């Protein structure tokens, strides 16, 4: 109807022809679909690239990641970073408080230095009282020769990043009941505390993927049994079970064996969450077309799980593993604090905290509680990084 009406109007008025332009370029039928360079970069990016871009936007996660990377790098050179050896005792400086670093002495620039400590005995409380002795200026030396150590138990060396002045002392975080430098012990403890989580997660990762993978891929009775098993393990309160298992480690074991025992115990109870995640993901993914295609082409289950299914949610696995490492670090700290975990001479943050077991410490020697600071920082960093990874693991959302 409208068309006939228009035709009538056209015949009556005869308008000027519209101005038009004809390009001489050959016609490109795909011109609409061509992407701008940015779009192309985005659409052609691999999944891992997308995740990396998304993770980069998460400032806190990136900062935490860098911090953790530095901490893990530091365990490679703990001996070099620590000003003293792990067990060097200073019998003249038992329970010395942290010394503060100064730059100026009597208005004159000296560079970083500490004042010497003067010890007096408070005759009423029988407590050692340390005061700074302003006459003794002890500049800190850098890249210097100090306590001898065996680098990774092999290479003899004496080089330290920084050490006290000749004949002086440098206790930046105070000393414990045997006069051992807390800072050095915390640096050495990092090596143990951080690796406990790594070994533990390796064990629980393997268990979780294998058990969850079997349950999710086969379903049926395999699934049922593993689900019941997971329920049983999860119904144990973790810490008491950890306590019982580590108490059952033979007392005759060497500290290094106990260390591996503890990591296995930590890993043995932690796999359930991971197994559940793997299972539910697999249950969903095995219905996908690419999985059916692989089956039809005759791939074996191990290949389908390992080659096709696992990579499609590896990012989720990494995120959840990152979130469960701090759990293990806290577990080890608690066990060692109770005296059921690692044993000296193996030194972890938890072992250091056993010194801070009663209220007297809080009142008199609060610096003995300092090993808790790296624990909190590490756990927080792992949590932030894990949160960022979890958000980034789904780059298409």
């Amino acid at each position, binding site marked *: 109807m409208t068309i006939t009406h228009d035709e009538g109007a056209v015949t009556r008025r005869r308008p000027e022809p519209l101005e038009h332009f004809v390009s001489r370029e050959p016609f490109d039928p795909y011109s609409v679909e061509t992407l701008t360079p940015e779009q192309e970069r985005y659409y052609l990016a691999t999944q891992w690239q997308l995740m990396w871009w998304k993770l980069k936007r998460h400032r806190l996660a990136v900062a935490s990641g860098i911090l953790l990377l530095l901490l893990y790098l530091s365990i490679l050179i703990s001996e070099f970073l620590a000003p003293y050896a792990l067990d060097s005792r200073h019998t003249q400086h038992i329970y010395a408080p942290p010394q503060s670093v100064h730059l100026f002495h009597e208005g004159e620039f000296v560079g970083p230095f500490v004042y010497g400590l003067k010890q007096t005995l408070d005759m009423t409380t029988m407590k050692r009282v340390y005061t700074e002795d302003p006459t003794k200026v002890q500049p800190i030396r850098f890249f210097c020769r100090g306590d001898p150590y065996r680098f990774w138990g092999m290479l003899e060396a004496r080089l330290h990043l920084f050490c006290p002045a000749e004949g002086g002392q440098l206790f930046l975080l105070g000393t414990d009941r045997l006069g051992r430098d807390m800072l050095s012990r915390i640096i050495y403890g990092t090596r143990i505390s951080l690796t406990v989580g790594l070994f533990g997660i390796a064990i629980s990762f393997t268990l979780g993927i294998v058990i969850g993978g079997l349950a999710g891929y086969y379903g049926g009775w395999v699934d049922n049994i593993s689900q019941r098993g997971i329920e049983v393990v999860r119904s144990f*309160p973790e810490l008491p079970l950890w*306590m019982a298992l580590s108490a059952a480690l033979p007392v005759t074991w060497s500290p290094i064996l106990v260390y591996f025992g503890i990591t296995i115990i930590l890993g043995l109870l932690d796999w359930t969450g991971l197994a559940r995640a793997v299972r539910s993901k697999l249950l969903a993914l095995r219905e996908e077309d690419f999985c059916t295609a692989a089956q039809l082409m005759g791939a074996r289950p191990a290949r389908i799980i390992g080659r096709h299914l696992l990579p499609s949610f590896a990012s989720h696995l990494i995120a959840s593993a990152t979130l469960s490492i701090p759990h293990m670090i806290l577990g080890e700290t608690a066990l060692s604090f*109770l005296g059921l975990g690692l044993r000296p001479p193996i030194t972890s943050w938890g072992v250091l905290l056993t010194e*801070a*077991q009663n209220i007297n410490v*809080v*009142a008199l020697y609060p610096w003995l509680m300092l090993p808790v600071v790296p*624990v909190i920082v590490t756990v*927080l960093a792992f949590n932030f990084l894990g949160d960022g990874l979890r958000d980034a693991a789904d780059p298409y959302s």
Partner: protein
Amino acid sequence: MFAYVMRRIMIMIPTLLAVSLIVFVIIQLPPGDYLSNQIAELQARGENVDQSKIEFLRRHYGLDRPMHEQYLLWVWGLLQGDLGYSFEYNMPVSEVVGDRLFLTFLLSFSTIVFTWLVSFPIGVYSATHQYSWTDHGLTFLGFLGLATPNFLLALVLLYVGNVWFGTSIGGLMDDRYIGQPMSWGKFLSVLEHLWVPVIVIGTAGTAGMIRRLRANLLDELRKQYVITARAKGLHPFRALVKYPLRMSLNPFIADIGNLLPQVVSGAAIVAVVLSLPTTGPMLLEALQSQDMYLAGSFLMFLSALTIVGVLLSDLALAALDPRIRLGASTSR
């Protein structure tokens, strides 16, 4: 509903059996039994060993029988309330334990109530004020609670309580009530001492609970029916309370399954630091002296507490949410 309850209870029984088996294996892990260790030690010290008593114990607890019979005897004893014999205290475990089991239960229960009371308003607030400074601050506080080992927090609170309030907070009641039968005065005294461990144990769980409630409520608030309600001019408070809040209440009940093991774990270590008369310190002691019957009974009790707690939470959830009791068989 009845069918669901029955099925849920039927699932629980094999779980309890499996747990008891694991606990029994743990009891047997250390080489030798406590009796032979004890005899060896006494003889090494040149002391007299009361052979008849040891023979009696050995027979009574079937230490001379094969492993599987020992296990059956132990489980049978547990069912009858015979928790075994503490070789360290030379008393039946049930006498050593006293009201520790009840106090452990009380402590866990109060901690969960505390967790609810704290995390509910905070979670709702951070969800309705997403990305505000208060939200960030509260979230960070929650993370901090998660990251601090709670034994150290206990220690610091102990000190603070001592200095600021001048009270000795260690223990769970006034000294004069220790060993007394339960009375009103004792109950009040327990309440008075309960808050420190409850706060300390509660911090870790509270953080997780706040985050989950916040996430759930945020999901719910973004749904269309909420937007419609707001668009039609419903008061924001009413649009929050009427449906979204109710929907996000589910995790409160459902999470007991996650929360309870955590609380029981936390209680064990905090109790050691604060020397509470609960199961924690005694479990540690029993483990250190390898008094395995005592340790095993505690472990069994703590696990049973968790399992029954999870059962109750599942039942409560089923009563609350018809989708679970009707659709559980199809969706899982």
